[in-house]
């Protein structure tokens, strides 16, 4: 009965997740969206089951001498929703990242 309707920013966030930006601040950097948009969208999509979160492995955090970060990834239904939304919004296959450094290295958690 309820059709899941993704806003443009939500779709872009899913897209960023798919492209390897797994942390809140990375997504903000990748999309140029403010934290006030990104975080509530993450919470909402987690509640809707489009994304799932888990805590970063403690060793990685310890190595960098900081607390473990929260890590987001797409679920199966998130992937489906993204495919639909990508068609509608004509999102590019890969997002131009704005961050200066390669992000893949960091997301091998």
């Amino acid at each position, binding site marked *: 009965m309820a059709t899941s309707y993704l806003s443009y920013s939500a779709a872009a966030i899913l897209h960023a997740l798919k492209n390897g930006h797994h942390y809140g601040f990375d997504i903000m950097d990748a999309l140029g969206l403010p*934290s*006030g948009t990104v975080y509530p969208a993450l919470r909402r999509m987690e509640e809707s089951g489009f994304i799932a979160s888990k805590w970063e492995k403690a060793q990685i955090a310890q190595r960098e001498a900081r607390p473990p970060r929260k890590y987001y990834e797409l679920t199966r239904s998130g992937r489906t929703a993204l495919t639909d939304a990508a068609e509608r919004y004509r999102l590019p296959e890969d997002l131009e990242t704005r961050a200066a450094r390669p992000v893949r290295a960091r997301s091998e958690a």
Partner: protein
Amino acid sequence: VKPHRWFIAVVSRLVPRALRDEWRQEWDAELAHRETTVEQWRAPTFGDRARLLRQSSGAVWDALWLYSSRWQSVRSLLRHWRICAVAAVSLGVAVAATIVSFGLYDALLLRPPGVQAPRELVTIFVSSPSNSYDVLSYLDLPFYRQRARSFSGLAAFSEGLTSFAVTDVHDHLVGMTVSENYFAVVGVRPKFGTLTFPTGPGAPTQVVVVSEALWKRLGADPNLIGRTIRVDHATLTVLGVAPASFTGMNLVWRTDLWVGPDANLQAIPPTPPDRTDRAFYLLGRLAPDVTSEQAQAEVGGLSAILAAEYPTTDKDRKAFVTPTTTITANFRGDVMPALAALVGLALVTLVAACSNATNLLLGLALTRRHEMLVRTALGASRLQLMMPLLRESLTLAVAAGALGFTLAYGGLSALSAIGLSFGPDIPPPAFDVRPDIVVVAVAVMLAVVVGLGIGLGPAWRAAADGLSGALTRELASTGGRGRRLRSILLIVQTAVATTVLVGAVVAWRGVENLQRVDLGFSARDLVVDDLTLERAGYTRAAGREFYDNLRAAVARVPGVQAVSLASGSPLSGCCDRTNLHGDGEAASNRLTNLAFATVDDDYFATLGVRVIQGRTFEPRDTPRSQEVVVVNQHLARSRWPDQDPVGQHLIIENGNRRVEVIGVVADGKYESLAEAPQPMLYYSLRQHYQEGIAVIARTAGESPAFTRAIGQAITNLNRDLEIWVARTLKDNLRLELLFPTMIFMGLGGLGGLALLLTAIGLYGTVFYSVSQRRTEIGIRVALGAQPRDVLGLVLRQTLIFGVIGSAIGAGLSLLALPIVSSLFFGVHPAEPVMVSAVALSSVAISSGVGYVAARPWARTSAIEIMRAS
């Protein structure tokens, strides 16, 4: 210095405690990570810190969003706002209809008069063979006061409210005659002066108590007490001022003047000591620890003593007590069934709206099956599973209740503000039906009951599903209990809509029948002016002379074709009452309460009343000649079935007058449109002088200009002459039709609402069930099914619901009709043709809605359908 960390620490207070630590950890970790990456390159600068602070500013929105998650129910409703808006609006409208009808019921029937301890007050009526709510004589007051022990106080108040002209106020005000202790029994304290009328020999009688409103209009003079005011043509001394909180105890009229029983105001002559002069009710305040049943028993016994003491006047008269209400008990009987029917139908409509909302919530609950399963796995109890769903339905119901109450309040306030007018010289009614605390409480209760009512079923089902449903998910969505519940709801809705529509059609038939009723005269183009000669100071002789001048003056008005004078006009105070005795025969031939009017020679011609036999009044019928009467057919037929009525004699009044019948005229409606045919007697105006006279003029068309010109012609004759009411007979008819039309509009509105709700529910259900079956439909289309076949598949189901629902509705209507048909004029207790017509049309409507909802699916190709699933 890390301002962004402090910022997060502060903002974290917004986050619900359960999530707070984790939330803070996530933000801290992100910021720490940022800090370390920056530190890898260089020592953080002021700019770096400012950027981090700016980036963490969104944490406020994040925290607020989590804060709002406490309001889970609101959020999950907001996610499905379209569905919820439809449900809330339709529920809201139905709740509004229920509150409005209950508000009217409350204001008219339940609300006590606004006085101290209103439940202790009772009104004493008398039932007599001719009138079940008869009035008492003022002479009864001392008798009851002396003997009755059930009351701490007993007062008398006049039956009717009288309109008075108060000099300097230029307006007519409502007044009432009361016994000296009336205010003490009611429990009202004076604002100024005293409210107790002086009694005893030599006590002043020309005194008056005024309302605070009138006191203000008289100049708000604190020294008004002891001064005189002119009321009609009498001079009265102001005794006291009643406080603004007391406006009489009548819902419709605000009382501004109270006079004692011995005041001489001409309009109300002083009460003569006669047991048959009855114009009062008694008002009693129950003594402590006395129930109204005990008072009833005592009063009934006392009236039996009176009947034994005065057999000629008080035989068969039995006193009884009723609670004192803002609408007197005799009218309550008229109003109650109609209002009860309205409340009942509104509730039934609410059931339809509730089943709609249940249907929608059921759909929502199904989409949450997965969540339910997870929560069950985590060990949630059934109650824990149901709670969030119930909260949702309650939220929906509260929203609907708020909307409904706002609509209802607006509607009832608008109704109270309607400026009803019964003519220029009658005070406008002050009619207040705005919701009070009782209505508010009922509205709140209604919202809670509705919330639980619409939520329990879906919540129970969704929670049950969580226990075992996961494996049967696919199956359950296309069949099983959910679908059965939906089907039952649809059938209920169709039944409700059919029943309410039958009600509307019956009410419409009632109005139609009233409009078509044979009046026995032609109501078109008649202007009526009621005058009282007495107030202008005419004596009997001068009055008779004035009649001729009056007739001549009105006849001269351009456009007036005929003029007649009579004691009253049909459908508006037409008749007085007399008794008819047998013509020298046994008392069994007696007829009490026979209606009569006193009319002039031209009356029957002016009103277009058919003369069947004999003649009407002529100049030869003078006060000195034989007293003659004209009777109607009904009376003639019942008295002299096989004889010629003309020339027969009748003995009237107390058996002291013998009159001769000179003619028979056609039957008609005299007092109300809905009355049964009744016997009627006409006297000659020439033989019986009347102080109150109605001028009836037939004009060349209907125009307010005629009413004005005729009124002008009358006042030109004598400036002192007051025209009580100037109107057309059509106005009388409109007033007669007002209540039936209002009932019809209420029922029609409810019927339309029920139908609309059913259509919405049906559309949703059909659309939903078809979309659930699209795989099946796709396969059928692939196998060669035509759109016709697919439609047939869906429509068959809709048709079954429609037929079952309409049949139940028709059955209910047929059961209810014998009970309610008496409310509507000319409606038979059994109306099989009308009921089946309504039932058939509701089947047709439901099929139509089913067709519209299913059509898009029937047109699509197999590929499209399969892809959609």
